[in-house]
């Protein structure tokens, strides 16, 4: 990531602003920047999605393969993550430069999806003990100034004056990802946190940590709702042949 140089005064300005729930681009502490999402950009993959959040551009592809399930978990399928930081994002990612970042992101994703509540691997089972689906989820980071959640979705400037940054993975509401006919059938949904990861040179007190996690969960639930609605709309548009495919052309 290209280095951000901030003077001391600018850092003080940002931290004071955050204390008063006011950020340099006018958002409140838990607002996300506007993001664009498009699915089915790569036709060779079984599924794909492209997410654009301010200066970050991420392309995700999902490929499936039939494989033998693990002997100690015969009823579950397998899921594998691979993150590739493309050199398009910054010259530092050339060759093996982005490997450390890529490995850390794929480890976080793996832990996030390990819990049965986040993603039910039972759905991937074909014949118990004999065959199962293996999902390969490949994430391509084509442009990044990575912002994660603490003050939710910080810009690069905000991140460089933060001491600690916290990543929280929260389970999604199944209502948006399946077609349910009777909405009353659904049990009451409670978002659960499946992975937490901390970065940064500083330390944080337990009370602050708890507040940050709660904040992250609230923001994630709003994000999930927005994403779910967008996916619904896209699915409906595809069914009615209204959808224009843009990919990177827009």
């Amino acid at each position, binding site marked *: 990531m290209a280095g951000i140089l901030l003077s001391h005064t600018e850092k003080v300005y940002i931290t004071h602003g955050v204390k008063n729930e006011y950020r340099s681009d006018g958002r409140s502490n838990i607002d996300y920047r506007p993001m664009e999402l498009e699915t089915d950009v790569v036709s*060779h993959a079984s599924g794909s999605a492209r997410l654009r959040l301010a200066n970050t551009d991420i392309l995700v592809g999902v490929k499936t393969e039939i494989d033998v399930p693990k002997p100690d978990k015969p009823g579950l399928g397998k899921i594998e993550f691979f993150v590739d930081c493309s050199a398009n994002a910054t010259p530092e990612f050339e060759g093996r430069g982005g490997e450390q970042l890529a490995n850390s992101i794929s480890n976080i994703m793996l832990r996030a999806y390990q819990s049965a509540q986040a993603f039910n691997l039972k759905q991937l089972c074909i014949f118990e003990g004999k065959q199962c689906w293996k999902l390969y989820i490949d994430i391509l980071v084509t442009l990044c100034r990575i912002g994660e959640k603490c003050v939710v979705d910080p810009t690069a400037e905000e991140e460089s004056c933060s001491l600690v940054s916290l990543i929280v993975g929260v389970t999604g509401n199944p209502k948006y990802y399946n077609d349910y006919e009777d909405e009353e059938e659904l049990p009451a949904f409670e978002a659960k946190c499946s992975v937490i990861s901390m970065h940064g040179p500083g330390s944080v007190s337990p009370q602050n940590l708890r507040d940050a996690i709660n904040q992250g969960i609230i923001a994630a639930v709003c994000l999930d709702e927005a994403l779910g609605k967008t996916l619904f709309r896209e699915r409906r548009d595809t069914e009615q042949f209204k959808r224009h495919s843009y990919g990177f052309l827009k």
Partner: protein
Amino acid sequence: MATLRVMDSFLMPGPDLLSSQGLRLDGRRPNELRRIRCKLGVFTQPDGSAYLEQGNTKVLAAVYGPHQASKSKSSTEAVVVNCQYSMATFSTGERKNRPRGDRKSLEMSLHLRQALTAAIKTELYPRSQIDIYIEVLQADGGAYCASVNAATLALVDAGVPLRAYVCACTASMAWHGGSPAPLLDVGHVEEAAGGVVLTVASLPSTGSIALLEMSHRLHSDYFENVLSRALQGCRDIEVILDKAVRDHLAEGWTKQDVVTV
């Protein structure tokens, strides 16, 4: 003529690439290019970027530079052109385990460097380096050609001085009822069927060839034919790229600003 017939029978091993009506496996005529869609300035962080689609092959190019060269690579006479060719793991039909660093990607990076160095005015920036990064999002044959074309657009977007556009195109040879019919812009299915594939990267406005590569065998009698078809393809691609560049530049301008010379 009799000797030519004998040659034909052990030259053409693969299945028919042309149907009886003269159509190819994807419905194109032998001298038709796949549809090309492109956009300049896709990203804001690199100095220049471009996205190009040639049929189902999708490629992203990003250019950084010219900037100071790393000590090991610096040259006092000319700019160092550094290319990296990388394929996304979901780009091919079979999932690819390593996006870059394997032999094929390194070879492609070298070929890219050769083609682009021929076009860049390298003597203008001694002791500097230009980085060109290619990311193949979907490979359906002709990924190298799409990469060269996308890199040209990205270089134009970055404002790097070029001698001419660099365009690349593939051509192959098929037989239609006994007479040879060169095919333009080979797709993945035609490549896999085992026919010869000639890849040409040229500077169409000057007519010179920067890179030439051929796989399989082709009789020397047919070589000129296939080569001229590929060069014609490069000229056609140059027209498309030029139009895209002009449209991109015209976007921010009103009619009064544009002066036609």
